[in-house]
């Protein structure tokens, strides 16, 4: 069986690092035939206003995402556990800055 030619280009997620030392941040997605072309297009679409010093592109299909319907089970339980935030604790004056 032969693989039919793709009628639509696959989707890529674009991550741009705005400055040396900062992390790459997700800024959008685009369609491209392959990784090299996705990089080139990301440059033209997402870095026109000097937004970046580095670009990553990742095939969207390679991202495993949590399901919206699992939201309650996954995230609700942490809502009432305020002791997980450092601001919950009073720090004795003697400790000084932590």
């Amino acid at each position: 069986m032969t693989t039919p030619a793709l009628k639509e280009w696959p989707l890529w997620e674009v991550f741009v690092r705005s400055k040396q030392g900062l992390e790459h941040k997700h800024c959008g997605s685009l369609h491209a035939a392959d990784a090299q072309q996705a990089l080139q297009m990301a440059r033209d679409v997402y870095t026109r206003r000097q937004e970046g010093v580095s670009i990553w592109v990742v095939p969207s299909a390679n991202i495993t995402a949590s399901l919206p319907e699992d939201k309650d089970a996954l995230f609700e339980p942490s809502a009432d556990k305020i002791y997980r935030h450092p601001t919950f604790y009073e720090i004795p004056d003697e400790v000084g800055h932590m």
Partner: protein
Amino acid sequence: MAVNTDYLLHLADNALILGQRNAEWCGHGPILEEDMAMANNSLDLIGQARLLYQHVANLRKDGRTSEDLLAYFRDAYEFRNYTLLELPHSTALLPTASGDRDYSVTIVRNFLYSALMVLVWDALKQSSDSHLAAIAAKSFKEVQYHLAHSRSWLIRLGDGTGLSHQKMQAAVDYLMPFTQEFWVDSPMEIVAAETGLGLQVSSLKAAWEEIVDDALTEATLKYSSSQGFVTTGKLGVHSEHLGFVLAEMQSLARAHPTAVW
């Protein structure tokens, strides 16, 4: 000694006319990303033209020349761009409507011109005119991307489907003869080379052929003949197409000469 502003205008007009042509794709690109890529390309080219026109205006010091006067109030015979750059985006002999626009012509022309300018701007970084050398340093970075962009599409479409290959070969066959104009040194280029302002482009021919040959081979396209009539746009003698480009580009400025944003 009179400054050779003709040479600077030649560089500026090349950038402006190709920038104007490529901007025709704005809102009509084959895909959104290419629409933006071509607009970026045009803005780079128009930016180069502006710097060069401003430089000419400063050199003339006649209190009247400005970048706008040079771009909007000169007629076709005063433009010094290569004829290659004023042609419509079409291999048809008589393209009539915007519907005739063919991306293969856009890509091949950008490739042939960028392959030249990557060499020209690199060499002009050593110009005796420090202002031109600075413009060259900036433009060199821009044209490196223009070359990479057009080269990648040349290879994708040349080595693509049967139809895309056929269209790319047609564009190469159509445009290649216009590149002969690069290699016939004009009086203004010879003077520019003698004074160290510019260079004789004919000295870059072998290097240009290497870039072009290398990419065409990878694109499975044939290096077509570049013989026949040699165009003379840089001498101010143009094809019938430049008048239409200028009419569209200049009409607003001429109708409202003192208008501002």
